[in-house]
């Protein structure tokens, strides 16, 4: 039996990418600075986010979406910093996608939020394929994990915009080589900005706040520029 070829040339994640683009445009119009957080489980995403929300909430309106396979534990933790927290429980799915984000945002007054954080499921593989419409993606690496994580998971580090080394208060005890970690990050994502923080002591957090404030100012400025 003979066969014929039909050319398709279609991106498999086209639906997700289109929806992510729509979300990104919406966030820009509403001047909400949206940051995605990815990391392995246990690298300190929630502690870091708790500090971020607490610090930013002093002079900004903040909100967070948190993804986990199960439980509302993270949302409950983050609500200590802001009531604007929604949990996305994915069941068995190992990543968030744009549709889950859109659904979780339903009936949320986004135009009154300055910073929205989307904490992905703890996983260094799957989230790299899915655009969520975020403006910046932070990848977290903790001082207790080992310096070569970026080399082992180059895809997620490369798909991120900023690297955050967490748990720096434990660096010495864990004999963590910061210079090697920075070299490895540079190797998989040349030019990437790297911050060293400790959510526990608060060290290094100010630099992250400054980056986020600058990002928000930039978003507002470009909004002014396009609004007649």
């Amino acid at each position, binding site marked *: 039996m003979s*066969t014929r070829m039909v050319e*398709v040339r*279609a991106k*498999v994640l086209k*639906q997700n990418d289109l929806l992510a683009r729509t979300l990104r445009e919406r966030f820009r119009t509403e001047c909400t600075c949206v940051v995605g957080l990815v990391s392995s489980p246990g690298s300190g995403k929630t502690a870091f986010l708790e500090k971020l929300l607490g610090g930013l909430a002093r002079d900004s309106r903040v909100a967070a979406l948190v993804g986990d396979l199960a439980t509302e534990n993270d949302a409950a933790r983050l609500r200590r910093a802001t009531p604007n927290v929604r949990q996305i429980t994915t069941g068995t799915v190992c990543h968030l996608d744009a549709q889950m984000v859109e659904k979780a945002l339903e009936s949320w007054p986004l135009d009154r939020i300055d910073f929205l954080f989307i904490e992905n499921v703890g996983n260094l*593989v799957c989230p790299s394929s899915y655009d969520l419409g975020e403006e910046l993606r932070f990848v977290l690496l903790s001082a207790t994990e080992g310096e070569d994580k970026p080399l*082992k998971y180059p*895809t997620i580090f*490369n798909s991120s915009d900023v690297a955050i080394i967490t748990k720096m208060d434990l660096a010495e005890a864990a004999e963590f080589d910061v210079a090697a970690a920075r070299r490895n990050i540079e190797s998989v994502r040349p030019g990437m900005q790297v911050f060293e923080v400790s959510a526990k002591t608060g060290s290094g957090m100010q630099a992250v706040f400054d980056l986020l404030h600058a990002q928000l100012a930039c978003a507002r400025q470009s909004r002014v520029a396009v609004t007649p």
Partner: protein
Amino acid sequence: MHELSIAISMIDQITEESERRGGLDVEAVHLKLGIFSGVDKDALLFAYELACEGSMLEGSRLVIETVPLVIYCADCEKDRVPPSVYQLSCPDCGSPGQKIVTGREIEVSFLEIAA
């Protein structure tokens, strides 16, 4: 293991394509898969077979063409294949490669149809 999600997205997309063309008897699906896409080839082949059960693609083959990682070297002004997926630099001059040219694809290129 998000390969099952990827396989389901593929099947939805091809089913739609088939409907648009008045129904296709698909024997094989050809996919371009970048090695920097975050999707594992073997896991996807496995997931595809499972996901196809009960769909119009049941019994079809998935043929995967691996797309290498290529970066653009701004110093050499040329596309280059880096030494490895965890060392994104030019193999000739050593400059870091900030722009990825290929390697992220997850793209159905064509379908083999029973004529």
